């Protein structure tokens, strides 16, 4: 197992109102650790020295929850393609490397502390339309709504979005179009989502604008940095959905 001695330049910030700055720390890791495990090692060291550990978000550590959010050497979730921070392993770094770790930078994602940003704006977008209505009463038969395999697969491609916000962090405009379009596509492609489709796309886009995310100018850095490989095709689909919905009945 090869050991790595690393210099970390980590963004430290007490809260949204105070100015932050980079702090340098030395850490010893081994190549089998994930990036988050390496940060755990650093935090254990800081705690043993009675210093404040670095705040960062994590939950499942399997690449499916979307909690880990940080910019590593300029890339959201680090330099590996289709990889979340928790799935990034230290063997991709070299002994003696200096690694820059920052929070997502976007006006709509204010810093809470260190590497933790407030992504509640995404929750509010979902609340605005990311749901389907289900009637109460007798349950319907499980096979009452057949969905074609192709259709299900395409909906699933959108559903793979874990809502981590890397697309926003990657975009020079801090646009949330990839996220919103993945959610809109996922539901618009399924029969369960058809009922509210026209209203959904309008409400979600409206909420996205209210939250202060920027506009899309087709840079497509979002797709390149997305840990789940969500395609910008979804943005095109959402734009079609949106125009059709506005023509039909503007909300």
């Amino acid at each position: 197992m090869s050991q790595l001695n690393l210099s970390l330049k980590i963004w430290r910030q007490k809260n949204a109102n105070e100015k932050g700055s980079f702090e340098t720390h030395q850490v010893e890791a081994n190549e089998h650790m994930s990036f988050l495990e390496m940060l755990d090692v650093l935090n254990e060291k800081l705690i043993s020295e009675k210093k404040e550990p670095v705040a960062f978000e994590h939950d499942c550590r399997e690449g499916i929850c979307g909690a880990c959010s940080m910019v590593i050497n300029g890339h959201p979730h680090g330099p590996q393609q289709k990889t979340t921070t928790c799935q990034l392993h230290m063997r991709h770094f070299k002994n003696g490397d200096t690694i820059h770790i920052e929070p997502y930078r976007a006006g709509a994602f204010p810093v809470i502390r260190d590497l933790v940003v407030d992504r509640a704006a995404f929750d509010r977008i979902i609340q605005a339309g990311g749901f389907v209505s289900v009637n109460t009463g007798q349950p319907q038969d499980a096979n009452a709504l057949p969905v074609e395999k192709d259709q299900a697969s395409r909906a699933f491609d959108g559903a793979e979005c874990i809502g981590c916000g890397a697309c926003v962090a990657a975009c020079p405009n801090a646009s949330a179009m990839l996220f919103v379009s993945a959610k809109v596509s996922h539901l618009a492609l399924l029969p369960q989502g058809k009922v509210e489709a026209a209203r959904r796309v309008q409400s979600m886009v409206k909420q996205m604008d209210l939250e202060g995310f920027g506009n899309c100018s087709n840079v497509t850095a979002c797709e390149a940095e997305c840990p789940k490989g969500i395609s910008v095709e979804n943005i095109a689909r959402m734009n079609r959905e949106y125009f059709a919905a506005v023509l039909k009945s503007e909300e």
Partner: protein
Amino acid sequence: MPRDVASRAAKTACDEGLGVAPTGLAVYLDFSAAIKRYGQSKANSAGIHNASEAQIIELGEKVVEEKYGNLFEMYEKITGENPYKLPMKIYPAVHYTMGGLWVDYNLETNIPGLFALGECNFSDHGANRLGASALMQGLADGYFVLPYTIGKFLSGDISTPKIDANRAEFVAVEKETRERIDKLMSIGGSQSIESFHRRLGKIMWDYCGMSRTTEGLTAARQMIRELRDEFYRDVFVPGKGDEFNPELEKAQPAADFFELGELMVVDALNRNESCGGHFREESQTEEGEAKRDDVNYRYVAAWEYRGWKEEPIMHREDLDFDNIELKSRSYK
């Protein structure tokens, strides 16, 4: 091969020093035979009679990718090795504990209005929690049960006026929470929460894991109590109690885990049989299969925690089987 038997065998092999990888905590899971088998059957059904070995492997890998593509991708990310070409190195680990909140047929817990869906409730698992069981229960509860049962609660609740947050109950809970936080913050010891959590996890893994014994469980209960005492004497929670503090977020559930862990050990000690995911070494057949005792233990237990100094109380619900006959698992 059922997963519980395979897991115990993997752990036993590693305990005996037969493990692979630098840590010795792994056994091989080799897909090469399965790839050839799937490939051959794919070739047969496609009418390719003289398929070369390379063709068969290619077809077989496609079948495996359809089935387990996402898992293989995760494995490659973690290890940096291609599992289609090299045998996977695997080791059992706890990721689920087979048990949960008591609910009625409407999925409502014993707290009115608190519904529990998915695997946090009783859970439909036997000796194994297999892949996608979590999805199955989440979907079944969320799609087919709750939409049709919560309406009854909501229809009665519609006339409830807005609840005043200054009521005595709120004030009492807030005070209790504040005191708990102040207590944790004031210990000012020298060991991190993570280190206690790991030690507790190790005790549970060693003595209340895939196989359990009376001696092991008895010793574990004592160890948990000692560790808990040490936690309240020597834990260090950095930061402040009234700001964003991930360490404090960890400390509160970690403190609860001592109670939960002890209750799990008490329950495992009480259940003098093997049943489902609970395997007591004293209670097994000659072939190493779990041996149930349907006369004495045909019930589910919910334990009431009454503080550290009192013994917990067991609330049992007997299980009646009217339409099916109780049998033992057999793969023969």
